[in-house]
């Protein structure tokens, strides 16, 4: 986790996804999976992408019987739980960035506002439960 040095390009992300879904594998094995998903990449592209993933800390490699086998260094769950301080600001006020449509606008709600909405939802919940009981 600590070794992760940089973000991912779209292509690197796809290669990492293949690595997660396939499990440890050689470049050829991973290429087959990527091709099955409709991507027309060549061997050298996949090899480059995997090398880059390794240099950024997302993957590791070892030589098995003379061929290089890559495996993911981080799991999807690890990355999901990660909190990126530097990215948070940009992404949190994403609603205001042009070319973004966010689920909610603004990122500051007072606790009173949130509590009031909590009560509204709870009331609706109890109503639903009562209706089900009937």
């Amino acid at each position, binding site marked *: 986790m600590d070794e992760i040095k*940089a*973000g*991912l*390009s779209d292509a690197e*992300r*796809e290669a*990492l*996804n293949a690595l*997660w*879904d396939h499990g440890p594998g050689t470049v050829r094995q991973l290429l087959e999976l990527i091709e099955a998903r409709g991507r027309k990449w060549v061997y050298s592209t996949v090899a480059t992408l995997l090398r880059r993933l390794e240099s950024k800390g997302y993957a590791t490699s070892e030589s098995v019987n003379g061929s290089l086998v890559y495996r993911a260094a981080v799991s*999807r*769950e690890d*990355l*999901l*739980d*990660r*909190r*990126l*301080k*530097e*990215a*948070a*600001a*940009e*992404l*949190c*006020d*994403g*609603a*205001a*960035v*042009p*070319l*973004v*449509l*966010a*689920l*909610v*606008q*603004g*990122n*500051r*709600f*007072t*606790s009173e*506002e*949130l509590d*009031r*909405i*909590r009560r*509204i*939802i709870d009331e*609706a*919940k109890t109503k*639903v439960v009562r209706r089900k009981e009937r």
Partner: protein
Amino acid sequence: MLGWSAQTTVIAMVLAAIAILASRSRRLGPAARHVLWLVVMIKLVAPPVVNWPWSPPKLWVTARPASIAAPTAHPIVNQQTVREDREATIDETPARPTVATPAPPIGWNFDLLGQGLFGLWLGISATIAVWQVGRIVRFQRRLAWAIPAPEWLVQEVRDLSVQLGVRAPEILVLPDLAPPMLWFLGRTKLLVPGRLVSNADLLGLRAILAHELAHLRRGDHWVRRLDFFAGLIWWWNPVYWLTRERLGTEAELACDEWAIRTVPDGRVSYAEALLDVCRTLSTTRSPAPALGVAGAGRFLERRVNMILQNHAPSRISVPVLLGAGVLALLALPGWSAAGSPPAKSNDSASKEGKILVSSATIADATIVASDDDDEKDDAATKAEIAKELKNELGPGSDFQKAMKNVGEELKKELGPGSDFEKEMKNLGPELQKELGPGSDFEKEMKNLGEELQKELGPGSDFQKNILSKAKEIEKRFGPGSDFERKMQRLGQKMATKYGEGSEFAEKMKKVKKDAKTVKTSSDTSSEKKEKTKTKAQKKTGASKSKARDLKALRSQIDELNAKLKKLEEGDREEDE
């Protein structure tokens, strides 16, 4: 430019007022209200390519405060006025309406002020553009931290996309506390925060995904692009900020409706997920200055209430769409100020709008001006402005791209495969449904026929009335009626008056006797007697004809009675 902006602002204000008034109607859902506000936004960014043949309300001329009434940002116009002032010629009326401003009062250089204002406007617009592009680039860079979405989430989005009729976007999971978002630089990406993926209730997540996909379905990403462009021009205009805010609000509400319609069992889960996202955002200590959106809390409450209770339709009805279309047609083309004809340009140039034409004339103006040494500096600045304008608005510029987007959006809204087209298509079957076999209309028509039969047919009140009238007639004129008795009495009276033993008969006898006595006296008297005789005979003949008439009447009444009886019998049989 200032004239155009003032005119556009006034028209946009009128459109906004219409949108506000129409929004009061409870029958209009968020989607319909959104369309009305969209007309305002399109008006704000649409260049005056088409000119109406009539003269516009010249509101800005009178409405503008004196300090900015005279200046005009049109360099060509300024050029002309300056030259005209110098040469003291006033015979040539300038082509553009903004030229027709009153002569500036002494002590103020309004041309300079106008240029200054325009320059300030452009300068701030350019600054905003740079700042916004910077934000876009930074945001794009941050997306490198996104991770590929798990297969089940991809499948979920794919299923929902099919359900909503949109092309499935690429999905990225953000290892952040950001809200779910759509990012539409290049291929549209759906950004989902990792928190939601790992611990949200599936129904809630599904509703959130449906909400985001509904934005694509409704074409809100195009509106957002339009808004981005409008913001560069109208940053100073409250009408723009109001329109922007309303568009955002109505789009969110409309997408919430889509979400709960797509995931009907997920109302409570969706509300919870929404609250969860907001709570997370509020507790995150963002290093960036807090982005306070006024009324965000109240709006969230409104959304949650609507999600939990809403029954309104999320589609736009045909009348609303037609109304908005008419509004747009009326308001969108630029009004040709003071009845001046639109600038003549060939087809390719007209596409880029009049602004390009005016920038060409600016270049001409600079050439004209360059022969005067004093005006050289002035001309240079103008050439710069012209260049800037070309960069801002010419081919390959954001302006042109945005215009293309507007066209595409309109095509999407109204063209093949659009909601409008679908609704128009639906109109046919709907009309058939409304008026065709099995429809309410047909039923009503049937009911009308039945009612008419009930009202006028056998057994109806009408028939009963007719029958009772006939009976009355029979009673009045038939056997045993007063009429008959009167007639009989008349007959008797006639008999007593003129019959045997009556005074008349005795008189006649007397006359006969007298005649016998006078017979011998003269022939003429006998002739007279003859005459009186025939008269008397005639009188008795008249009474006879009356009796005949009576007989005829009676026979007619009898005939009527017989017909009535037949009819009544027929009815009884039918009833049985």
